[in-house]
């Protein structure tokens, strides 16, 4: 059984007991435990079930590489699936649930998968099943897969994550990722040059695994050296140390993401849960250490089979042993350290099985001296299946698995050698080289990732570079720190050697399969990827089926595609593939390493952007008034505009109809502040606007307004609006609400990149002004009342708003009701209409004054839907409705706005291309249903005949469609082939509701065709 030992456990505080639950069961651990160590201490060897076969699984590792111990953590709005027990610090009240089982962890029905279906669930299962008879998929396989598939369970979709998150931008000379002895030494070397250094360590404590492995540095015990060095670094102004912060990814131009877990270990502490560091470092040192590889033998996934280094971690760091009788299997000397540690902790080591014929070096001698039996040239043939290790059969390594000896054991420590953690080196293109002696891929320092200046920006340090011995690690780290600082522009320094203890180790021997010629029965029980349930036999099958590329094999078998991204499985799988293909490992190559190194929370990626700051909401100065007067909001870009103002008991449709009628019959007010307002000024401004607009703007008289169209260089209609000539060299251009920033940028682009010698300045004054459209038969009356000019005239010093003083399509500056204002006599409704601009800071006051003064004239505010209906009744186009990026002004009957006098304007040349002048282009018409109903929005009209796909030919589509309260019927506009020539014809619009709507082609101006109402 796995238990807590009476002694040991450098990271735990036995005086602080912590209660937690696992599957509802109350358990106890200590401060300093991880969830993994605490589970082991409670003899909870079984921690989950595998994804595909639901096989019982236990802890294999002690860090981020753990593939099995994924749990659902937390409850309610703090529940998160797939959290690693090994990287979860224990806290009081922690609630964890195991995953992938039904009905319980101990007894799982899905486990029959592995017994009954495993021969169907081989590599490429999904691909093969997709191809087989379709009914099989739908009725047999899919329900079966749906029931058993899925990693963990999704959080309740009704609940919102209760935590907050944030980002932090940071800049430094040297970033060190990894706070083990190599990272600390590299940081020290870099800091000595005066470089600004940031050190990130994913765990809560510094020093990495050296305190577990033992040794001395500069005459100090590893733990003492670490404490001293951390204290030294903390005292330096140019160094920042962050624990619980993982270097998650290395990106182009030396951009690195750090993932800081602030409250995962102390929920309820308050403040953000995670902080995403967005780091720009001159140089990055990856001191990310190495990961131990499992050995591939049958039953290597039975709970109790653990990496030798991890078992040592549990012993030394947390005082926990996974078993009482442990068998050690290895191909290298490092696992002997585990045998020694177990022995020192009083745990029986039943056998060391060393695959090497010649055995190990100094460490194995020590183990032998302790009286532990070592067998060389031997292998594990099979670990007996079950919920934990009970028996291990051993055999000759160089055989097929016969002549077995069965040994009683309750845990197995395995080591297949160590691979450097090359992920961060590789994220941005760092290349690897195959190291024959260590049988691993290590970073090739001559092919480092390069940055914006073409120079390398990542340096590896310590065992992340390849070396595993302490002396080599420290020398490499010191050099790496100095090298990075120098590359970051700091002075070069010679590195002084660092004295360490030294152990002579015998070379490791690659062992990719145990025993070397294991038969198929064994290979089908030999796991490579624990999380995705990929076995040696699956990779071999893929190779037989023709998958030669490692990238293809990965996808076909799903090897390395689980949440651990193959940290344990990749090299082993690769070696099996190489063997099956009869190729060398370096020729097969590795798959691509992609960030993040370890999954990070979605919350951290989103940062502060949630709730009311999920995205910016743009508000006009009158926003609060609208909100308190029943505004039903409509998003227009980032703006929020009232769609309509709801009165109590009213439906939205009723509100819109009321607003339409009232504006036509009495007085409506529209908050038009969102419309873009761009000032264009300079000696060449007229010439510039003539290029931007399709019509002539340079000839516009001061004091006058003109409606204009803008096209892209492709000829397509891009924006429209009223332009006012302010003075000799100044124009004010109105744009659509969504067009302000875009058209401002469009103007700057042409001025800066094409006509840079033209003397024109543009300023966006959209937000300087609050603008109100005062619309309806009583529009003039309310303004005159505000000016104290009831009955007309110029009394009160206000602006003269009479038709004589301010005619249609004219503007004037002056005062209205005491407000400094500019009045435009323009109309987008067909009614008598003024648009009045005042300073934004006075917008609300002006609006309130209009509402107050307008009472006797029946004033009502109106929203965007009413605006749309009013304009549609008049046949005015709307950018974004009648246009969609494929429509040219000619399609909309706007020929009158295309200047024939100008040699050039943006879009002119394009509009003469053959397709643009095609008489078959769909053109704007009005549409009236025969029964008065409203045409469905976006409906297509069908004509005679069918296309190549047997579908009816389309001959037009609806672009705008509304119920007109003014006319009490549906009105619409649309683009129809040969439309203007087909007035009076009835065409069919099949609706999605199965009905066919019949509509007559009519003139798009439905109301007041002669424009009498606006000209009063």
């Amino acid at each position, binding site marked *: 059984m796995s238990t807590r030992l009476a002694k040991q456990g450098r990271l735990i505080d036995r005086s602080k007991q912590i209660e937690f639950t696992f599957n509802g069961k109350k358990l106890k651990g200590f401060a300093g435990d991880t969830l993994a160590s605490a589970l082991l201490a409670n003899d909870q060897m079984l921690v989950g079930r595998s994804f595909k076969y639901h096989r019982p699984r236990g802890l294999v590792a002690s860090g981020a590489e753990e593939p099995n111990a994924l749990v659902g953590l937390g409850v309610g709005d703090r529940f998160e699936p797939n959290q690693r027990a090994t990287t979860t610090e224990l806290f009081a009240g922690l609630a964890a649930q195991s995953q992938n089982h039904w009905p319980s962890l101990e007894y799982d029905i899905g486990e029959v998968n592995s017994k009954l279906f495993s021969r169907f669930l081989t590599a490429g299962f999904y691909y093969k099943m997709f191809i087989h008879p379709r009914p099989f998929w739908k009725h047999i396989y899919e329900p079966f897969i749906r029931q058993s598939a899925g990693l963990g369970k999704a959080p309740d979709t009704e609940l919102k994550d209760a935590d907050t998150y944030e980002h932090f931008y940071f800049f430094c000379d040297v970033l060190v990722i990894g706070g083990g002895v190599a990272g600390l030494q590299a940081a020290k070397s870099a800091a000595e040059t005066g470089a600004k250094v940031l050190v990130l360590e994913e765990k809560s404590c510094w020093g990495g695994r050296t305190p577990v492995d033992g040794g001395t540095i500069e005459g100090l015990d590893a733990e003492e050296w670490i404490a001293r060095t951390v204290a030294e670094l903390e005292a330096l102004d140019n160094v920042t140390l962050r624990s619980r912060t993982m270097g998650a990814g290395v*990106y*182009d*131009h*030396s*951009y690195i993401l750090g993932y800081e877990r602030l409250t995962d270990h102390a929920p309820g502490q308050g403040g953000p849960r995670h902080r995403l560091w967005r780091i*720009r470092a001159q140089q990055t040192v990856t001191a990310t250490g190495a990961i131990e590889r499992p050995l591939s033998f049958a039953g290597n996934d039975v709970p109790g089979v653990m990496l030798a280094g991890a078992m040592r971690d549990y012993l030394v760091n947390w005082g926990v042993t996974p078993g009482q009788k442990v068998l050690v299997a290895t191909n290298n000397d490092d696992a002997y350290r585990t045998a020694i540690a177990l022995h020192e902790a009083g745990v029986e080591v039943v056998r060391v099985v060393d695959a090497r014929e010649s055995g190990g070096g100094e460490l194995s001698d020590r183990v032998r001296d302790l009286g532990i039996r070592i067998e060389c040239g031997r292998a594990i043939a099979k670990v007996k299946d079950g919920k934990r290790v009970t028996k291990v059969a051993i055999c000759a390594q160089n055989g097929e698995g016969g002549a077995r000896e069965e040994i009683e054991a309750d845990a197995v420590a395995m080591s297949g050698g160590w691979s450097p953690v090359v992920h961060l080196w590789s994220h941005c293109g760092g290349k690897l080289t195959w190291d024959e002696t260590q049988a691993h891929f290590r970073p090739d320092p001559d092919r480092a990732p*390069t*940055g*914006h*200046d*073409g120079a390398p920006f990542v340096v590896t340090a310590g065992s992340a570079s390849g070396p595993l011995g302490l002396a080599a690690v420290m020398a490499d780290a010191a050099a790496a720190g100095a090298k990075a600082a120098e590359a970051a522009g700091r002075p070069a320094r010679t590195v002084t050697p660092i004295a360490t203890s030294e152990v002579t180790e015998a070379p490791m021997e690659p062992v990719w399969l145990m025993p070397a010629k294991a038969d198929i029965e064994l290979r089908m029980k030999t796991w490579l990827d624990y999380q995705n349930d990929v076995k040696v036999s699956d990779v071999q099958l893929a190779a037989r089926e023709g998958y030669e590329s490692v990238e293809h094999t990965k996808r076909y078998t799903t090897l390395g595609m689980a949440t651990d991204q193959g940290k344990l499985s990749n090299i082993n799988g690769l070696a099996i593939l190489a063997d099956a293909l009869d190729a060398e490992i370096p020729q097969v190559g590795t798959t691509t390493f992609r960030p993040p190194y370890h999954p990070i929370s979605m919350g951290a990626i989103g940062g502060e952007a949630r709730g009311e700051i999920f995205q910016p909401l743009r508000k006009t100065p009158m926003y609060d008034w609208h909100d308190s007067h029943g505004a039903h909001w409509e998003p227009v870009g980032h703006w929020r505009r009232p769609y309509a103002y709801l009165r109590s008991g009213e439906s939205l449709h009723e509100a819109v109809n009321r607003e339409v009628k009232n504006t036509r019959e009495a007085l409506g007010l529209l908050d038009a502040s969102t419309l873009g307002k761009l000032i264009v000024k300079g000696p060449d401004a007229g010439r510039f606007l003539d290029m931007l607009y399709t019509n002539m703007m340079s000839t516009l008289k001061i004091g006058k307004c003109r409606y204009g169209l803008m096209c892209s*260089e*492709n000829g397509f209609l891009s924006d429209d609006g009223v332009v006012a000539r302010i003075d000799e060299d100044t124009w004010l251009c109105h744009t659509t609400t969504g067009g302000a920033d875009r058209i401002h*940028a469009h103007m*700057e*682009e042409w001025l*800066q*990149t*094409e006509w*840079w010698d033209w003397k024109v300045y543009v300023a966006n004054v959209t937000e300087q002004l609050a603008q109100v459209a005062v619309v309806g038969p009583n529009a003039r009356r309310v303004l005159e009342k505000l000016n104290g000019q009831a009955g007309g005239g110029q009394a009160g010093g206000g602006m003269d708003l009479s038709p004589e003083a301010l005619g249609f399509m004219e503007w004037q500056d002056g005062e209205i009701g005491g407000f400094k204002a500019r009045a435009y006599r323009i109309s987008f409704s067909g009614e008598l209409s003024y648009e009045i601009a005042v300073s934004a800071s006075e917008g609300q006051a002006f609006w309130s004054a209009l509402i107050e003064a307008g009472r006797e004239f029946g004033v009502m505010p109106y929203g965007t839907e009413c605006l749309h209906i009013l304009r549609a009744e008049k046949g005015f186009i709307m950018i974004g409705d009648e246009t969609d990026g494929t429509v040219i002004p000619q399609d909309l009957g706007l020929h009158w706005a295309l200047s024939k006098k100008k*040699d*050039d304007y943006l879009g*002119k*040349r*394009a509009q*003469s*291309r*053959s397709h643009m002048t095609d008489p078959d282009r769909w053109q704007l018409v009005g549409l009236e249903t025969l029964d008065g109903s409203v045409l469905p929005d976006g409906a297509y009209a069908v004509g005679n005949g069918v296309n190549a796909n047997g579908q009816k030919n389309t001959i037009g589509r609806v672009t705008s469609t509304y119920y007109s309260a003014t006319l009490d019927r549906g009105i619409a506009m649309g683009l129809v082939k040969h439309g203007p020539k087909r007035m009076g014809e009835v065409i069919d619009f099949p609706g999605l509701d199965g009905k066919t709507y019949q509509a007559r082609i009519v003139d798009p101006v439905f109301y007041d065709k002669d424009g009498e109402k606006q000209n009063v």
Partner: protein
Amino acid sequence: MLILDCPYCGVRAEETELHAGGEAHLKRFGPGSSDEDFHDYLFMRENPRGVHFERWRHVSGCGKWFHAARCTQTLEVFGTYSAQTTEPPQQITDAISAKRPGWTWRGLSD
């Protein structure tokens, strides 16, 4: 995420402050141009693996457009320069030649 030095305000701006504007040094063809020239101006773009010239705007900064010479393969930036030019300045082409001997791009070359 790329960083580019804005030649106007001197900020080393990260990509989130910038707006990419496509290929640099296009020659505008307007009314009177041939169908072929106009078509090429509107639609035909270089898509090199290697040296490339681009337009960028420091949109969340000084608002100015500028040019960047960049390697599309390694993302190395050879330099940034004024938008008010129809061709890259000598100092930029020299910098490219030093790093990518034999380079060519449209009508330009080492």
